[in-house]
């Protein structure tokens, strides 16, 4: 992950959300709990992080930004703010003992992971103005853990603020949802993101645009693409694979072989937002990609077929993702036609959902290739 900005100004996009959060900081009418939703890499954590800095800052600016200079901000910048608590899942789930001590704590748990809320919430802050809890993946809260939070979310001490992050509103319990102010995060525009990559991270204009296009509105993804050249190479390799599949140029290679190829490509060492906080997939023989990397690969395939579909419907070349590959896309468009391209795109989306839902990776890739070929 890039260095997470401590200030709203450094965040790309999300103007509406930022306006809302700044207003809360300035007016002092801060809700007990906020629920940030949006897909992985869209900027939930970045936004929550900047908000936490502003909430704890002793003298926020009139715009609602953290001052960057007070003792609270300095500790925050060192990544050692004692009153901003991160609660991340413990092996895929956020469990009740992470929040409150004494509920079947496993012996191997590190002491600082145990009872984070229980042992801190009753102490008023002494470093900053507030105590902030960031639940980085609220969708992984187990039901008992979520229920144990209800009373606290409803009546926390006046200085405590909870920031819950989840992909979708539906991913957290209704009872939690109703106690949080909802901050939905939308995809960030391509131009805006390309500009941000170029200016803020010194990425070349060409590369910035490609990354922005591919990332589907997620700055986190765009940034990780821009900093990992192998990711863009993978993207090109997948375009080749898509072209082979779409035009039948895979020769005699059987479907299973193509699936193998897809898995090998997706096993490239790339860090994605999904994988950053997930443990490595167990039992892989080196050829089974991480779930996040495979999703990325499927996005690449999907984007290619989408471009072909777009062209086959008579869309202009300016809004395609695979710029420079128009000739091959056009060939696929005229060969397959709109209906079959639709079918292919649907197949990709369905299998992608299955992979997100923890489907068996080798099986899912094979089903995908078979459906694309059929």
């Amino acid at each position, binding site marked *: 992950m890039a260095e997470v900005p401590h200030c709203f100004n450094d965040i790309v996009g999300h103007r509406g959300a930022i306006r809302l959060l700044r207003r809360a900081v300035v007016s002092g009418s801060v809700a007990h709990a906020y629920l940030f939703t949006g897909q992985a890499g869209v900027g939930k954590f970045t936004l929550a992080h900047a908000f936490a800095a502003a909430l704890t800052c002793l003298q926020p600016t009139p715009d609602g930004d953290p001052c960057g200079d007070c003792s609270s901000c300095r500790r925050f910048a060192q990544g050692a703010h004692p009153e901003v608590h991160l609660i991340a899942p413990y092996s895929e789930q956020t469990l009740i003992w992470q929040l409150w001590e004494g509920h079947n704590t496993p012996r191997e748990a590190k002491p600082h992971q145990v009872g984070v809320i229980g*042992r801190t919430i009753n102490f008023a802050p002494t470093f900053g103005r507030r105590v902030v809890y960031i639940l980085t993946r609220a969708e992984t809260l187990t039901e008992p853990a979520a229920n144990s939070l209800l009373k606290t979310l409803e009546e926390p*001490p006046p200085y405590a603020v909870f920031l819950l992050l989840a992909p979708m509103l539906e991913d957290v319990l209704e009872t939690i949802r109703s106690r949080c102010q909802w901050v939905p995060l939308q995809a960030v525009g391509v131009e805006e993101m390309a500009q941000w990559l170029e200016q803020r991270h010194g990425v070349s204009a060409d590369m910035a645009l490609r990354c922005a296009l591919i990332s589907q509105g997620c700055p986190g993804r765009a940034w990780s693409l821009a900093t990992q050249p192998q990711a863009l190479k993978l993207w090109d390799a997948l375009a080749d694979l898509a072209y082979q599949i779409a035009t039948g140029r895979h020769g005699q290679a059987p479907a299973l072989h193509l699936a193998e190829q897809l898995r090998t490509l997706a096993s490239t060492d790339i860090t994605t937002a999904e994988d950053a906080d997930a443990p490595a997939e167990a039992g892989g023989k080196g050829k089974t990609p991480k779930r996040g990397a495979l999703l990325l690969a499927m996005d690449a395939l999907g984007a290619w077929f989408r471009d072909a579909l777009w062209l086959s419907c008579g869309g202009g070349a300016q809004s395609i993702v695979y710029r420079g590959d128009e000739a091959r896309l056009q060939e696929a468009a005229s060969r397959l036609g709109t209906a079959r391209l639709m079918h292919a795109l649907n197949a990709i989306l369905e299998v992608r959902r299955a992979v997100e839902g923890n489907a068996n990776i080798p099986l899912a890739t094979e089903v995908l290739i078979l459906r694309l070929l059929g």
Partner: protein
Amino acid sequence: MKITTTRKDLLEGVQTVAHAVSGRSSLPILQHIHLSAEGDGLKLTASDLEIGIECFVPATVEMPGEATLPARLTQEVLSSLPDADVKMSDDATHSVQITCERSEYKLLGLSPSEYPTLPEVSDATSFTVPADTLKEMIKQTIFAVSTEETRAILTGVLVECDGVTLRMVATDTHRLTVRSHPVSVNALETPIAAVVPARAMNELGRIVGDYEGEVEVQIGRNQASFRPVDDPRRTFLITRLIDGQFPAYQRVIPTTYTKRLTLATEEFLRAVRRASLVARDVSNRLIFSTNGEYLIIEAESGQSGKAHEEVEVVREGDDITVAFNARYLIDVLNVIDSEGVHLELTEPLRPAVIRPVEQDNYLCVLMPMALT
């Protein structure tokens, strides 16, 4: 930093502050002790951001400066070094060299500037209490503190002061202890009510344990601090306060009684302790009934058998049969040092009050158990 001191003084200092070192903070620096050499000695500080302890070790300071040392390792190294002079010096990489006779250790520290400074107690009211009184007040209340995290406010001791009386109160909803002591606070605008975490109280009890003198108490909005006045080791304890409203405890203290039993503390305690051996598997339930000049203490367990004890009693009011948790009774009888105790009762299921005879500064309210 470059200093010379004795191993004994240094170890004592490190052991004093190490109690505040965190076992479970995510910040690595909080596993360390902060050392600051200036003037005539070394100041040691440790904190887990809940409590912080500071103390002073006399030393010859050749070069003032700051450093940090890992608490546990330093404690282990110091306690196994020979009893002689210890030299300490640090270098640019924050490691600290400890030399004692022919032993030489280089322990890896962290940047001292990262160490969080102990907060100031803001808007504080201060007063002094004799150390031995403070220690006794803690001892007489702290056992009733709740250990259940779900009601955090009960995991601390309420320290209350209205300007003339200092009061410490603790409860876990089954029992309640109240100990008071006269103090004089000048210009107290609003009465103080602060809930000090049990852990800080235990540490305080330890710190003032062998000290004879006054302790300066400062109570602010979010913190409280305790400092023995004129302590050569200049020990200082600061703690955060538990936020929230302590329950209105006065309402559960019975104002009248209809029966009062007066017993010899020691004899009563011994009898309860013996009888409780049999009561272990029946939730420590002991049944008390008066019979003439005797109080009969009985326990009955299907697994271990029966106990029957008789204790001489002076009774006012009618005969009564009532059940108590033996452990709760032992806890309170253990901290009463008067020769006799009063046990004030109304009905078998109404709260009872235990008070030392001829002392009105202490009481313990006990909820009886069901008889069957």
